């Protein structure tokens, strides 16, 4: 038995099926639909030890702010059933250091960089979009209007359709016209479709969903909140059904809007759920903490799962769960229907 132990890169892989995995998020065309998730991959460098950054559809960076930011005190993390809470507080180097060190590094490696930006005011978002304008290697902007760990938790832009729309309109106007602007939405709203419609009307090119859910844990020993920040964002497989529901509802309401889906994806079948619900691509986030090579594994498993279900291409599977009850299952892989 011990003789079977091998390094992961040397493990024999399942022969790849011939499913066309290419996808589009508005004007951004990616060779495959599996991305990292914001806040779960830093700026890509650390994960390059485990897989080639250009092997994924895109690398979504941790949200970048205008200035360097220390983040919150510790403890910043609590493990929860099939999930975790985090209260990092957007620790980061600021946009200048990011443009000097991180974006060129990603570009050099052929990674398609999806840069997540976060601000505490509309002006900050606009300034970030301006600094990123024309930067080589930038494939897409993901506008984080839904981080639950901002200073003033009362002002999560994505919880108010009008505030969300104002941010997106301002960023869209300032950003490179050919670079898609995606709005990252919060599930902590009564009607996510209303927020989705508001940001699309404001000029968003697509939607990333979902961000974490606001949660908290109380330490039974100290009988106080466990996180220094009191509340934190819940992520991991625990939130997957919520995320799939959000993607489903928004795709149902706006079937032509491209969606980057995320929330607790751990396996290829998890990713398939998002695709079937209407996502054109997916981000693998928290699972990276337990399995640093999870994104490339999910890609391999998703491709195999699509092949096993008779799909020729990923695009045929997007939103497939919405088909009428009497539709033929699955689509004929050769397309030679009479």
């Amino acid at each position, binding site marked *: *038995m*011990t003789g079977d*132990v*091998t*390094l*992961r890169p040397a*493990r024999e892989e399942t022969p790849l099926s011939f499913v066309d995995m290419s996808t589009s998020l508005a004007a951004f065309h990616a060779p495959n639909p599996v991305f990292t998730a914001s806040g*779960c*991959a*830093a700026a890509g460098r*650390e*994960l390059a*030890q*485990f897989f080639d950054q250009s092997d994924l559809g895109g690398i979504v960076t*941790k949200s970048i702010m205008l*200035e*360097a*930011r*220390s*983040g*919150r*005190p*510790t*403890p*910043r*993390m609590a*493990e929860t*059933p*099939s*999930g*975790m809470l*985090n209260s*990092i507080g957007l*620790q*980061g180097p*600021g946009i200048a250091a990011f443009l000097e060190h991180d974006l060129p590094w990603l570009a050099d490696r052929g990674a398609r960089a999806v840069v997540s930006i976060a601000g505490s005011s509309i002006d900050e978002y606009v300034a970030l979009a301006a600094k990123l304008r024309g930067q080589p290697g930038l494939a897409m902007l993901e506008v984080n209007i839904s981080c639950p760990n901002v*200073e003033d938790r009362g002002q999560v832009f994505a919880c108010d359709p009008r505030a969300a729309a104002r941010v997106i309109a301002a960023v869209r106007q300032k950003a490179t016209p050919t670079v898609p602007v995606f709005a990252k939405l919060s599930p902590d709203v009564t009607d996510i479709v209303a927020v989705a419609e508001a940001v699309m009307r404001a000029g968003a090119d697509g939607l990333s969903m979902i961000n974490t859910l606001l949660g908290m844990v109380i330490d039974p020993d100290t009988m106080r909140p466990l996180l*220094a920040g009191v509340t934190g964002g819940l992520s*991991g*497989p625990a939130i997957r059904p919520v995320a799939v529901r959000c993607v489903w509802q928004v795709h149902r309401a706006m079937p032509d809007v491209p969606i980057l889906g995320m929330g607790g994806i751990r396996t290829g079948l998890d990713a398939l759920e998002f695709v079937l619900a209407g996502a054109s691509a997916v981000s693998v986030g*928290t*699972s*990276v*903490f*337990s*399995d*640093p*090579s999870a994104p490339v594994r999910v890609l391999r498993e998703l491709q195999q799962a699509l092949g096993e279900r008779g799909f020729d291409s990923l695009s045929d599977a997007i939103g497939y769960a919405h088909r009428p009850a009497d539709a033929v299952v699955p689509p004929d892989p050769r397309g030679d229907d009479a």
Partner: protein
Amino acid sequence: MSPVQVAGEVLSLRRVGAYWQLTLVAPGIAERAKPGQFVALAVGGEHSSMLLRRAFAIYRVAERGLYGGTVDVVFAVHGKGTAWLSRLHQHDPVDVVGPLGRPFRLPATPVPTVLVGGGYGSAPLFGLAGALKDRRCRVDFVIGAGSADRLFGVLEAKRMASTLTVTTDDGSAGERGRVSDVLAEVLERSEAGLIYACGPMPMLRAVAAIAEEFGLPCQVAVEESMACGIGVCMTCVLPIAGVDGVTRMLRSCVDGPVFLGEQVRFDDVGTVPAGTLGAPVPVASTQ
């Protein structure tokens, strides 16, 4: 050298006093590992509801043997993850990522050294002691714990070191008291030029303070709770004063776990001290 992710396997698991010593077959780790580095283990099996890896300092490695490369870690059962590890059997699979973190830095010349371990924090010091002795450095050990069953590696320390001083809080072994109560005497006796320490944060703080008193450089390996161990999650940060005088919230997994004692702002761990790079600026009074 870059870490690897390995499908490891349990070779043995045994009780050592109040702790567990786990030996994993994990090829690729041993030849890369340096003293002070750690491994991050996935817990709970493939469909585990426990998402976060558990980080453990590497106790020792063997590059080859009957079963290929192995890595040993020592742990106490603290929660569900370590309880799961304590129930493993031979041949059970365990996913291993490592070696991670920055190792202890070794002196270029043969300097007398004192190694201070608290609880199972002494585990990474034995590999370090070996590396120091290879460089003809004198090694003196101070090992402490709450009680005799929570001391780790007493016999091994006795074998490797010029002298060994043991302390326990309850006096059940060695001298009653803390490692910090005996450290000054050991430093004087051994004419130490360098201190290494690993253990709980209050112990590291006390050791760093004594090092400063003696004007000796001191390297401490910290234990902060981590989620990923590879530098992406930003949960294991602590305030570190840089040589430029600027305090930064650094990750203990990739910027540590070994830091210079004088750079760790022990009094401010768990906070973001004012003046830290990127810290919120206090709002000026409007009165």
